Structures are given as structure tokens and as C-alpha cells.
């Protein structure tokens, strides 16, 4: 695979840019081996931000993408999808977390910026070894198990059953109804519980 990495440094409004000098990080990224494009942008996760990734992959002929922004738990899917829209396998995109693991926890701007550069350099090194991966599929048994026959279990079982699916409702006591059966009237309407 050719080494043509694009690096996108997110400012996250001021979440990142108030601590990390994102312009400097993007400039630094350009100097890394394999990197052919780097830029910073206000919100990478926004529609224009994702569009920037898609367009740049086509225009610059990128083969790998690095987004330096938040945790992949937050926007991993977002950027994998944007990469796929650009015509690359989504797993050729990697994220460097310069928000939760950097700007949000470090007060010193210089040190935080140096750390952001380290994180970007590491991620670029990693992404060069990424391989395209394919999503697999598994079959679905369309039958649900509900454990507990109180209000919650009964409601869930009824809703799933009404949608046309089979449900097994398992209750440890001899009767369903749970605590509700022991309650007299219910607030705020004062109607009967059972």
C-alpha cells in the first residue's frame, strides 16, 4: 500500500485550541514521513469537517487518514464513515485523542502542544500499518428472554410480543406482577395497582 497519509487536526471550538496550538500541530504533521497533507479545522465532526475529509481523500489521493480530535468512543464511527465516503476502507482511519487525553487535562499550552505532536506522530506510524478490514455478519434468533415479571418485565414483554416477536418471560416467584401486586393505590392518579 502506498504511504499517503492525510492528517486532520480538530480545534473542537475552543475545547482543544485553547490549550493545544492546532496550527502548529498541523504544520508539524506535514513534516512526518508518509504525510502528504495536513490541516486544522474548527469542528472536524461537523458536516463541512467530514466533507473536508471526503474531498481531500479524492483530491490528494490519500491512502490513510488520521484525525486528531476527541476519543474514538465519541466520534470513531463518524470519521470511519467519512473515510468510507471518500472511497477508502473505514479501518484505514485512525484517531489521535488530543482532547480527553490532552487539552482537557493539561493546563500548560507548550507541553500540551508538544504532547499533541507526539500523539499525532504515533498515530501516523500506526496507520501506515493499518489494513482494510471487512465487517462480518451473524444470524439473529428472533426470540427474546425477559428476566423478571414485575412492571418492567411485563411491559417489555408485551411491547416485544406486540411487535410480533416471541418472548420467554422468566419469573422466580409463583406469580408475575412483582412488587406492584403488593401495592394498594398508585400516585399521582390513585388508581388500583393490580
Amino acid at each position, binding site marked *: 500500500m502506498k504511504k499517503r497519509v492525510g492528517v486532520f487536526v480538530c480545534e473542537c471550538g475552543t475545547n482543544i485550541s485553547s490549550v493545544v496550538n492546532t496550527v502548529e500541530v498541523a504544520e508539524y504533521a506535514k513534516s512526518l514521513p508518509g504525510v502528504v497533507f495536513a490541516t486544522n479545522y474548527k469542528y472536524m465532526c461537523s458536516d463541512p469537517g467530514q466533507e473536508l475529509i471526503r474531498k481531500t481523500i479524492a483530491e490528494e489521493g490519500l491512502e490513510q487518514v488520521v484525525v486528531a480530535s476527541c476519543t474514538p468512543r465519541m466520534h470513531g464511527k463518524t470519521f470511519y464513515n467519512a473515510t468510507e465516503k471518500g472511497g477508502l476502507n473505514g479501518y484505514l482511519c485512525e484517531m489521535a485523542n488530543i482532547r480527553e487525553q490532552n487539552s482537557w487535562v493539561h493546563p500548560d499550552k507548550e507541553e500540551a502542544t508538544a504532547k499533541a505532536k507526539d500523539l499525532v506522530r504515533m498515530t501516523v506510524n500506526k496507520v501506515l500499518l493499518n489494513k482494510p478490514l471487512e465487517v462480518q455478519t451473524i444470524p439473529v434468533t428472533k426470540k427474546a428472554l425477559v428476566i423478571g415479571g414485575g*412492571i418492567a418485565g411485563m411491559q417489555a414483554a408485551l*411491547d416485544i410480543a406486540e411487535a410480533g416477536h416471541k418472548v420467554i418471560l422468566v419469573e422466580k416467584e409463583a406469580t408475575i406482577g412483582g412488587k406492584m401486586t403488593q401495592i394498594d393505590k398508585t400516585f399521582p392518579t390513585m388508581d388500583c395497582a393490580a
Partner: protein
Amino acid sequence: MVAVAQHPNIELVTLAEVTKVAGYIGNFDVTIKKKAKYVDWDLCTGCGTCWEKCPEKKLLDDFELGLGQTTAIRVAFPQAVPGKAYIDADHCRVLNDRKCGICEKLCPAEAIRFKDQDEYVTEQVGAIVMATGYDLFKWEEAYGEYGYGKYPDVISSLHFERIASAGGPTGGNIVRPSDGKVPEAVAFIKCVGSRDDTKGKSYCSRACCMYTAKHAFQVKDKLPDSESYVFYMDVRTAGKNYEEFYQRSLDAGAKYIRGRVSKIYPRGNKLVLKTEDTLLSMALEVEVDMVVLATAMVPSEGARDLARVIGFSTDKDGFFQEAHPKLQPVETFTAGVYLAGACQGPKDIPDTVAQASAAAVKVCGIFSKERLATEPLITEVDINKCSGCGFCVPVCPYKAITLEELPERGFTRLVADINSSLCQGCGACLPACRTTALNLKGFTNEQIVSEVDALCL
């Protein structure tokens, strides 16, 4: 309840427990233990002949929380669903090697089966909804100042529900458990076990403010000449029509006093509450006939073990842990397992119903697809390197690794095999692999080393 039992798509299994869960989203294998009922429910009509004639008549009734009596063969309560009889094995004379067998002789359907045994069945399901509810905090073990449960007229709110219920042991007449006397004054104490770091739980149990408002109202409604005192820290009425309901209790004459009760002790036929009114900065002594404690909600017994059996986590208080407090309140960290109701945290009925419907929608979302996509970021095995040592097998928390026989040049050898549906890509197996035959796709050893190189070289 009847709607559940009669729904053609619902199979109702009561007196049963889930003992084992294997598999993964879309494909769980579940083992259910059906406890012996000693009655053939296909034949039982619930006619009641058996429990009318059962000679063990003075057993403490769990359903009535010990306020009533029951028989060894019984239904839980008259409207139980299913309305079929079962035998309490701990108290049945025949099952404890004593002479009896009256129910067997009298049952018109010939449904009694003293030789009934526990039965295990396995089922395949695609998704699991946890709805194991809550228990009440055992205040008797923690609150010495309220008498450790030795005063019969200091009861929990659920006891009060039974006393106030038309179907309960007193026929809905509010009377003291000790002597059946109509109380001239009832005290309600809120936050017993809730919001109490030292003796109970740090959290708020959410439903108590409202049901105590209801109880205080019920006292004034049924016994207009009796006093109804509520001792509180705060009154939290955040719900639709809740504040109005609280005001209705005040208008009915319930007296709210802001202060904790520091001691309850008997004086003659009465109970004395030592407390204070913090709004008046005044010490108080209040004489009442009955005290009702709004006890905290805690996870139901066995909930933590069940979470371990199925394979998801619990929080610091033992409630089931949601995947995200705001964005994934009904999901667990295990795909295909969802949460509904008080098993996830204290909840009132409207919130429980809402969460249950949300969990149902999540299940229907899975069932709307013929096949589910799985993450490819999982472990792969280089069979050329794998020595078949099996060290990785017990390490895997998802039971995704098995040793399989690989035929090779006329003989077979064992190699690790990854179930791609079970593997969650956690990487725990990698350090256990001595030959580096295991690798995590997307996080390969080479990739990690390359990152470290970038930092250190």
C-alpha cells in the same frame, strides 16, 4: 398481568431462574431452572379445594409480609397469574416425611405430584431484557434507634401498602399490627436507608417522597380524626402532577415536619419519636401509635450473581450498570442485553414503564434485521505459530477461544480457534500467547510497537 399470560407470543415461566447464559447478541443459549411445583399446571384449575383443606394453615404469608397467614399449598394471592396452586416444599407435611396427602386425595383434577423435581430447559434467544427489580433496604439490621425491628408497630411502607389494601390482611382498614387498634396518630419517616452514608445508601430512592405523600393522604382520607405526621429531609416531587399530589396531601391535613427522627421508644401503649423541627430550630417529642418507614430501594437479592452469570457489570451499589448514564441508559456493556426498571437504579412506575418500552424498542431494533454486523477488530490466530498450549482459553472473559484439532501431514495438532461473534477485541489473550500467534486486528503487535517507536526512537 392477564394480558401477559394470554398473549400468544409470550411464554410465561414462573417459579424459574436463569442459571446459565452462553453465546452472544442474536444467539444466546440460555439455561432455565424450573423449580418443582409439585402440581401439574396443565391439569390444575386453581379451584382452591387444596388450600382450603391444607392442614398447615398458620404459615407466615410472604406476600402479606408476615402480616397474614397462609397454607403449604397455595396461590401467591387471589389474583395471581398464573392462578395455579404450588406446594411450599419447606412446609408441606408430605415433603417433610410426615403423614398427610389430603390435597392429593381431594384434588378434583388429580394434579398433585409429590415426586415433582426441578427441571432444566435450554432456549435459544437473540436478546435479553433484565427486569429483576428491587428489594427494600433491611432497616432492621441498621437502625438501632428505630428498634431493630422489635417494635411491631414500626413497619415499612410496603407493610403499610398491605394494611391499606382492600385485598390485604385487614381488609383495607388502617390498624396497628400489634393489637388491631385504629391509630390516633401515624408517623411517616422518609429517607430510611436512602441519603444516609453512615447507615445506608448515599443515593435517593426517588419514589419514597411520593408514596409517603400518598400514605399520609390515605391516613387522612380513611381516618379524618387521626393525625398524619411526615418527618422529612427534603420533599422531592419532580414529576408530572407530583407537586400537585403532594399539595393535596397537605390540604388533606398531613403535617410535614422537617427533621430527622433520632430515636423511637415505647411509652405505655404508644411510641415516642424524639426529633426536631429544623425550620423552627426546636426539639420535639411526638407521641404516635404507628410508625411507617420509607426504606431505600436496593437491588433485588441475587442480582449481582445473575449479572455475573450473563456477563455484564454492576455499579457500586449493586444495581446493573448502564453503558452510558445519559446516552445509553438501557444498554449494558454486553451487546444484546438491555435493562428495564429498578434493576438499573431506583425508579417509580412511570419511569419504569418508559424504560421497559425503551428496552423493548432496542430488542425490536435487533430483530428487525436478518443478520447483524460485527466489529472486525478482533483477535486472529496465526496457525503456523500456534503451539496449542491453550493458555489463552481461560484468559478470555467472553469464552471466545477454543482449541480445535487441525489435521496436518497425517497427524492432528491443537490450535486456538476464535469465535468471531463472541470475541470483543479486548486483547486480554495477547499477553497470554507465548508464541505471539495471536494478534488483534487493528491493534496488531507490529502497530503498537510502531507507535512506541514513534514516541521513543
